[in-house]
């Protein structure tokens, strides 16, 4: 049984329908240099593409990588895989792939198992196929449930989709998921090192309260083609922008900047390396800025970053201005 000395590991789910880019994302994570002490749980080794040079050791259901990461295959016994991971002290973070038609809400229970803590749900949505899927007689409700469960949405294949498709998808997602950060990405196998994209997504997850969305909301039935479901009080499309800040930053000044932009920002949250050398969490919500010491076990050693969320027709511009002010703090 789990010793109380083992620190809890964040458990993040990666979900999304077939072909939405989950596997590509998983391969990125496994090949990444900036993610250490991370275990990735996949349904099937056959779908992952690990560079042979990276393999330190391999067993029937677990592959250990030279970069300190582990890749596990779920196998017959989900319980055994997950409870074994829960007891390990050599990893900080677990990323678990949900099957294509799987409901992230089912696997999410594991994030409350001893040894784990919730690390959010990253859902991939294919910019080309998703809108049609949301009207498919067989899977519309499944895809909507995935989107609804998201802490972060990765809109993939943006290089293949046209602008109209992408904006229609964003609207649909906002209607289902409300105020959830969306990352636009091509997510192609042959794109250079885009593991930074993933790191940004992970930051956005840690930046938001995972459990804030009420359980009861999630069980609403979704009917394909029903516009009343798409329309909600979050009609306005939310935009997000992540600002990274090098070196140490005076956290009080960050607070002032955010306060100045309170009218334009819906929300903001970040982790900042303060001048005292401590990592601190700074949040803006309901017009109030709060600062607290960051919990240990965050991903890697990071630069300071703040995720800004804006809304409304001028969101892009407003975010740009806030970002400029924040960056200005470092130039001084």
């Amino acid at each position: 049984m789990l010793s109380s000395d083992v620190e809890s590991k964040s458990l993040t789910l990666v979900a999304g329908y077939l072909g939405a880019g989950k596997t590509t994302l998983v391969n990125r994570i496994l090949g990444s240099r900036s993610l250490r002490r991370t275990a990735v749980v996949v349904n099937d080794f056959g779908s992952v593409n690990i560079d042979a040079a990276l393999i330190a050791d391999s067993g029937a259901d677990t592959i250990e990588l030279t970069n300190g990461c582990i890749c596990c295959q779920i196998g017959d016994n989900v319980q055994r895989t997950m409870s074994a991971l829960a007891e390990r002290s050599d990893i900080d973070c677990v990323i678990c792939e949900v099957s294509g038609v799987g409901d992230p809400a089912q696997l999410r229970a594991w994030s409350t198992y001893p040894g784990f803590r919730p690390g959010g749900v990253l859902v991939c949505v294919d910019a080309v196929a998703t809108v049609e899927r949301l009207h498919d007689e067989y899977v519309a409700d499944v895809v909507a449930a995935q989107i609804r469960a998201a802490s972060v949405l990765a809109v993939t294949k943006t290089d293949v989709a046209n602008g109209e498709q992408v904006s229609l998808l964003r609207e649909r997602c906002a209607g289902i998921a409300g105020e959830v950060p969306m990352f636009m990405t091509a997510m192609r196998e042959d794109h250079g090192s885009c593991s930074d994209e993933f790191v940004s997504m992970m930051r956005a997850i840690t930046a938001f309260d995972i459990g804030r969305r009420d359980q009861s909301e999630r069980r609403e039935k979704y009917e394909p083609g029903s516009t009343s479901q798409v329309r909600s009080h979050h009609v306005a499309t939310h935009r997000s922008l992540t600002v990274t800040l090098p070196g140490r930053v005076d956290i009080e000044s960050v607070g002032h900047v955010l306060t100045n932009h309170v009218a334009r920002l819906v929300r903001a949250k970040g982790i900042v390396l303060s001048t005292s050398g401590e990592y601190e969490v700074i949040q803006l919500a309901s017009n109030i800025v709060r600062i607290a010491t960051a919990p240990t076990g965050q991903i890697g050693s990071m630069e300071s970053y703040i995720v800004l969320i804006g809304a409304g027709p001028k969101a892009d511009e407003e975010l740009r201005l806030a970002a400029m002010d924040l960056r200005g703090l470092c130039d001084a």
Partner: protein
Amino acid sequence: MTDRYPETTVVYPARLVRTMDPTTPTAEAVAIRGSRFRAIGAVDELMRYPNAILDNRYSNAVLLPGFVDAHTHAGTGNVWKGTYVGFVDRVDPRGAFWPGCTSVDEVVARLQDADKRLESSNTPLIAWGLDPIYFTDRALSVADLDGVSTTRPICVHQASGHAYTVNAATLTSCQVDPSSSTEGVMRDCQGKLTGELKEFAAMALVADVASGWGDLLSVDKQALREFAQDAVNTGTTTLTDLGTNLLMDDEGVALYRDTIGDTFQARIDVFHWGAGVGPVSNTLAEDAQRLAVLKDASTDHVTFGNVKLMLDGTLQGFTARLRVPGYYGDQPNGIWNVSPEEFHNAFETFHRAGLLVHVHCNGDQATQLFLDTLEKVLTAHPRPDHRHTCTHSQMTTPAQYRRMASLGACANIFANHIWQWGDQHLDLTMGPDRARRNNAAATALRCGVPISLHSDSPVTPLGPLATVKHAVTRLTYSRRVMGETERIGVAEALEAMTLGGAYMLKRDDEIGSIEPGKLADMAVLADDPLNVDPEYISEIQVYGTVLGGQHLVSNVRELN
């Protein structure tokens, strides 16, 4: 040809032989040479065959073709390693009768008895078959189980496979904190633990106690043998294992081959589980080729090569996939066990390899996907006489049955649900109207769809005579009739349970009816099902079976 057959021809007179063959629907006797029927007719006719001798052992019995249940699980043998606490009566493979536990108090009493019988005071007490859907006013709780023992860990596996109910000793020995924040650890309105652990994360907390009980997916030599005895006890001569993942390994194949030899007490058709449990294989085409080779190496007793694909969940678990109007209480739609795309790919691959596919569809949306996919597959790769089957087929509609007929598909209908969960379907899951239309055997027959009926053992007990009774009377446990217009006749139900099952396994040339040349498989009964009140068909005593001419005796201790 006579020089190849030195064996005698044994003539068995009976009170009555029902053959399921319209050319000779009834007879006085059967003549068996070796493992096959040689002739059927009057005793004096049969005695004129060369080397004929008379055997009167069945002269007071009624002989039918051996029953064929085309949807069962070999793990049936293994579930009895635990104590049975389910709602309905069952007979275990050793012939012992276990009355159903129809209240929480009866569950507790059963467990108290089991607790006394266990030798060591440390061995966990594992029980199975609990379905909370039957106990609407009071659920089995940790307090009830503490009343059985406060020292021995107790774990009750719920029938769905998705929850346990445990006692305090289990929680303590697995260090489950009363303040545990793991999702699925259920609490009452005062915040105290109820003893229920729902879904896999919460269940994993007590894995040390709960594991070691085999569920319906686990199979070993002993389980297979007990499964076969269950068959003998119920007049069943052909069963299926629907399905297994073991066939992709030579060791797995060997388990079946080595155990199911020429003297094994049932025929087992072993299906490969191709989709719906875990991720779909990356090597479907190779898997299909392997199955095609295994198929050729099948014997009379063990058959390989057929494939099972599972689309959705169950009605009583609210995990079946439904079309509008959906579940009675507007519960959210159920789950897909495989995506439509992967299902299509798997179905097409196995079909192209010439294999037979049975697809689990409980909800009507699952049936719809089966039909759409079958149509695409057949259009792209026509294949005559495929007999692909929609199995369970619980909510299949008249329009869907019409399509099934035109596509050449079969339906294996889960008639046992009418009795075992009919009240729950009427009142909780489907609603009074929809429930009446479920398991629509009459509609299927009217539309010309070849049908069979099944138990899905151990989900419901193996027992073809009971299955016939359920399809004919459509009585629920509380004796309501769930849709009288879907009742079928006894003769139709018996045919479904013999030739119908054989047909959808593509073995109707060898089994399913009593005809010359076919394998000599028979059910040996005390009474004629067509001559008793339909409600009492399930009470007819089964003396045993004849399997390829071998005489097999039931070990059930008959009650009056």
